């Protein structure tokens, strides 16, 4: 599983990365978590509000910092 955190480096982006890593560890997934900070690349995903969460090249969340439970839910839906 390849996870990308889209965000120019704001506080919310750091929060999103933290909850995502929590969720990945909690699920025991083997996933890579990559930060994307380039505006052109962020916009190419079609999101207009940061931070964004991309799983295997598909945008699953944009514009908010979810709870770790919500990320866990999203990620486990994609593993099964």
């Amino acid at each position, binding site marked *: 599983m390849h996870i990308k955190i889209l965000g120019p480096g704001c506080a919310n982006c750091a929060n999103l990365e933290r909850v995502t890593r929590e969720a990945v560890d909690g699920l025991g997934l083997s996933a890579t978590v990559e930060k994307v900070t380039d*505006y052109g690349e962020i916009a190419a995903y079609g999101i207009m509000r940061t931070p964004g969460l991309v799983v295997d090249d598909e945008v699953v969340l944009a514009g908010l910092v979810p709870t770790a439970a919500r990320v866990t839910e999203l990620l486990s839906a994609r593993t099964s």
Partner: protein
Amino acid sequence: MTADAPTRTGHPGLRRGVTLGAAALAWWALYSVNLPFWDWLLGDALGVDLDSRAGGAVHFFLYDSVKILLLLTGIIFAVTVLRSFMSVERTRALLGGKREGVGNVLAAGLGVVTPFCSCSAVPAFIGFVAAGVPLGVTMSFLIASPLVNEIAIALLLGLFGIGPTLLYVAAGLTIAIVAGWVIGRLKLERYVEPFVFETTLRGKPLDPAYGLTWDDRIRMGVEEVGAILRKIWPYLLVGIGLGAAIHGWVPAEWFAAHASADNPFGVLVAVGLGIPLYSNAAGILPLVDVLFAKGVPMGTLLAFMMATVALSLPETILLKRVLKPRLIATFVGIVALGIIAVGYLFNAIL
């Protein structure tokens, strides 16, 4: 490895209605007892002379803090719940294919109702322009969004009533429409960083407003109140504190001499002070409230507030990622001119 589904028992709709009703009642009760409570506590219980400078300032600070907090809580909650039916993605879809003119009017209106944080100005700018929304129409949206925002409307309504609030909204929309239209006419596309036009949008955009339940919307409202109050409380305290000090110590004659409608430079000075100042409506309106009571004319005050919320140094620095300095200067110049015109107009007609 399944997440626990929330268990729902009884009548969730009824319970939600009762909870919201109780919250509204509690809000109204607090708002009603705010003034009598401080009058009683400071004046009767503690024996403070409310007509003295220090007494008046302390009373103003406490009363105004509670009043503004209540107004913000109520209005941010209501606006967030209503706005959860809109999203930037929907706005972009609505603006796609619209011509300039009609597009500017629509963009300014959508700028008011779309939930949007100026921290997302850059990705939204790229997203709009890359999807084919004209530059001027995009600018109308980006100008209206911070200028006519829910915090400003909430506080204007609470502190000045419906008349000045409508004037402010109408003036803000006009500035956003005209400034965006002028930027479009000037054909400034060459001053946009080329990568914006080269950005290709792949994947299907996510519509965050899709599939939300009423519980989700209410939760978003509560979270937004918390998030905004956490962000703006320092501005609020400084604004109310300064307001209280002016309320107590700066005589009205001073303002009458320096900032009355007769002073031809009043609006210019207000806008010049407001542009570099980084605050938001919550920090500015307590000051505006006091200055108005001291006799500073409404046009000057609204111009000051508009310059502060619409044009800020941090936002222009952010926009440098996508706009060349020439376009940023044009944008700031046109919006500042619009604000100055509105200030003088209001001073002349009010």
